[in-house]
Structure formats: structure tokens, C-alpha cells
């Protein structure tokens, strides 16, 4: 993945990739996979937390992305944002159907956070952009909220309920955390 981060992938390169994918150039799919699979797999794995199921979701997501490319509108957002959302949605659907199967709707917060802490160190690449920086810059409360929102698929109201804090506080912390993150990009 060299030093080019996906969110700062040169617009021309992204546009070219989108053009080829929308023209249904199958070889572009391999290129797409090389560029995006680590980021997508990282998100899927942190949500789903099981390797075999993550593999299923990744595969399903890529097929879905391929077939949905016609509906991707570059003017509405970056390619990375769009594909991330597809992967997040599929992953969240996966854990919800699993929780539904097991019968308990929401996992206990402690369980989910422990699971996440255990899951995280397996194979993330510490040399990769920003994770240490993020850990340094985000206060634990902010990080916890972002993790619940982003990796656990909680809504802001669910986070408020889970952490027993006002919804307004959740909104403020989430916004502040996102501001901190966007400063780190530059």
C-alpha cells in the first residue's frame, strides 16, 4: 500500500479506477482489491470479529460492490467512503443476524469491548498510518464512542443508553473526535 493512503489517493487515479470499474473491466477488480482489501478487511474484521465470517463478508461485499458500481455517484462522495459503507453495512447486518440467532439483541458492552481489544492486536500493522497517533490524540472517551459507533454499529442513542450518558454528550464527543481525526489527516 506504499505511502498513499486511500482517502488521499490522487483524484485522477481514483477517477480512472472508477471509470474502469463502471466500464465493467474485470481486471480493474484485481487492482481495486490490491488497493482496498486491507482497509475493508480491517473494518469487516473489527465488526464481525471472526476470521471465517469476515472472509464471507469481504467476498459478498466485493461482489455487491461490483454489481452496484453503476449506482456509484462520484459527486456524492469518495469511492473509499462508498465502499466502506457497503462493507460496514454488510458486517453490521451479519452481527445483527448473529445476535438475533443467539437471541440476545445487544451484546454487553464489556464483552464487546473486550472482544475488540483481543481482536485488535492480531495483525494490524503498527507501521501503518496514524493508529498510534490516533491513540495519542483521542481521549479514551472519544475513542470509545467512535468505536461503538463505527465498529459496533450502535446508533448515537444506543451509545447514550449503553454508556448511561446524555445523547447531547455523545453527539459532542463524536463530533470532537471526528474533528481531531480530520486534523490528523493533514
Amino acid at each position, binding site marked *: 500500500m506504499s505511502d498513499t493512503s486511500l482517502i488521499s489517493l490522487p483524484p485522477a487515479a481514483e477517477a480512472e479506477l472508477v471509470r474502469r470499474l463502471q466500464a465493467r473491466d474485470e481486471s480493474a477488480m484485481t487492482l481495486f482489491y490490491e488497493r482496498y482489501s486491507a482497509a475493508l478487511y480491517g473494518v469487516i474484521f473489527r465488526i464481525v470479529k471472526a476470521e471465517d465470517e469476515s*472472509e464471507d463478508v469481504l467476498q459478498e461485499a466485493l461482489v455487491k460492490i461490483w454489481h452496484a458500481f453503476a449506482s456509484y455517484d462520484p459527486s456524492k462522495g469518495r469511492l473509499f*467512503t462508498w465502499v466502506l459503507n457497503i462493507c460496514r453495512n454488510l458486517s453490521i447486518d451479519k452481527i445483527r443476524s448473529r445476535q438475533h440467532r443467539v437471541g440476545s439483541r445487544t451484546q454487553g458492552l464489556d464483552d464487546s469491548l473486550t472482544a475488540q481489544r483481543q481482536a485488535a492486536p492480531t495483525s494490524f500493522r503498527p507501521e501503518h498510518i496514524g493508529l498510534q497517533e490516533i491513540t495519542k490524540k483521542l481521549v479514551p472517551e472519544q475513542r470509545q464512542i467512535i468505536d461503538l459507533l463505527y465498529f459496533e454499529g450502535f446508533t448515537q442513542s444506543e451509545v447514550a443508553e449503553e454508556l448511561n450518558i446524555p445523547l447531547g454528550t455523545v453527539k459532542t464527543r463524536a463530533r470532537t473526535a471526528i474533528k481531531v481525526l480530520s486534523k490528523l489527516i493533514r
Partner: protein
Amino acid sequence: MENFQDYFESGILEQYALGELSPAEQAEVEAKAAAHPEIREELAQVQAALGFYAEAHAITPPAGMSERVLTNVLAQIAAPAANTSLRNEVDAVAAQVAPVAPEAGVRPMYAAPAEAPASRSWAIAASVALLLSLLGNALLYTNWKSASSELVALQNENSRFATTTTVVEKKLDDLRQENQVLRNDEFHAVALAGTKAAPSAHARVLFNAATHKVYVDVRSLPALPAGKQYQLWALDKGKPIDAGVLTVATATGEGLQHMKDIASAQTFAMTVEPAGGSVNPTLTTMTVVGNI
């Protein structure tokens, strides 16, 4: 800028980026972002920040997984008939449409680079048209399916109704005949009263001396043991003549029964006989009897 600040503070852009909003709310945010560059910029920042966060958590898929996933994905997007048949149809339509473009009237000098996008937009237009038509067909097909199953249901109902009507008509015909018998002056009503064996038994015989027709009309008869049937006898000058056996329906008083023709009789009587009737009456079982 002030009111945008309030809008940003509401946290709706974060909710949008995290996929928390309903489709209607999403559309609203998209419309606002399209109308106001400030909102578009803010939303892009939120999305980029989350993308950055996601990317910071990247994990290279374990060895072997990439090959499997990529192979499966390429196989699925290349091969499947179900998915590609639509694709082929779209391509076919696009191919038919595309050659028209260069021939159509004035062609700008810089047409060469523009040609690909033009045919692509034709292809997209054709795809959209085909998709709409397929959706329309799917809708029509669904409607047609439900209409045809409704038709089958109606046909069943109709044939059931026809059967009922036939049954009713037959009953009506029976009643009409009975009515004719009952109203006909030529018929002589013979009351049959219960014997000592069955004092409460009561029946009538309707006898037409001119046409020799005999009908029996039961009011009340004792229930029969299994394997037995009531048999009607005409007595002509003391000699018993078989007038036929009564059906179960007749014996329970459901209606008139047309019996065998009798040329001449002075007395009618009923006995209990083995099912199917006897040649000679079993006089000990005589239940009702009456004289003309």
C-alpha cells in the same frame, strides 16, 4: 454560516456518515449538501475522518484468503448466467444503439475522444430503459400471476356454484312432482295407522287407481334394526302384492317415494323385511296398515 453551525452541531452529518439515517433523512442531507458548498465540505471532512479511522485499522487479509476471495469474486462476477444475461442484453441493446451515433448528422471534429462517453451514455440510457422495462415486466408478470390465480379461484367458485344449482334444481323438480301428486284429485290418500306393535307409527299412501301410480309418505315409523327395510304391500282381495321397499330417506320422512305400480288394491300395509325386501310379507312385523 450561523445557521449552518447549528446544523453541524445537530450531529446529523455524523449520523449520515455512519449510516444511521432513514432514506428520507439521507435524501434531505444529500439535497442540502448539493445546495450548499459549506455543508458539502463539512460532510466530506466527516467522511474523510471516518475513512482515515477505518484505514488506520487496516488488516492485510491472512495468507491464502486473498487468493480465495479474489478467485471467487472474479468467478462470480464473470460467470453467472443469471447476472450476465441482463448484462448481455444491455450490451446487445447498447451495441445496436452505438453505431447510429457516428452516422447521425453533423459530427463535431473533436468527436473521436467524445465518442466513447457518448456511446457509454447511450449504453447507460439503454440500460436504464431496459431496467425500467424489466421492472415493468416484472410488475406486469406479478399482476398477471395474481390475476390468473384469482381467475382460477373464481372458476372453482363458479363450478361449485353450478353443482349446487344442479342439486337445487333436482330437489326443486322432486318437490314439484310431489306437489303435483299431492294436488292431483285422482290420487287417493290412504292413511296407514300404527298396529299394536307400533301404535305411534303413521304413514300415508297416495294411490291413483286410473294410472296405477303409488306414492308413500311417511310421517313417523320406528327406527329399524340393522339389515332391515320397510316394505310396502298392496292387498288385493286379501292377496299381498309387493309395492317395493322404502329407502332410508323415505322411512325417516324426508319426502314422497314413488313405489311400484299397483293395478288394484283395497288395503295397504307395511312390514319389516330383510334388506332388499321379501317375496311374501312377514305378517308378524306389520307396522302400519290402512284401507282405502
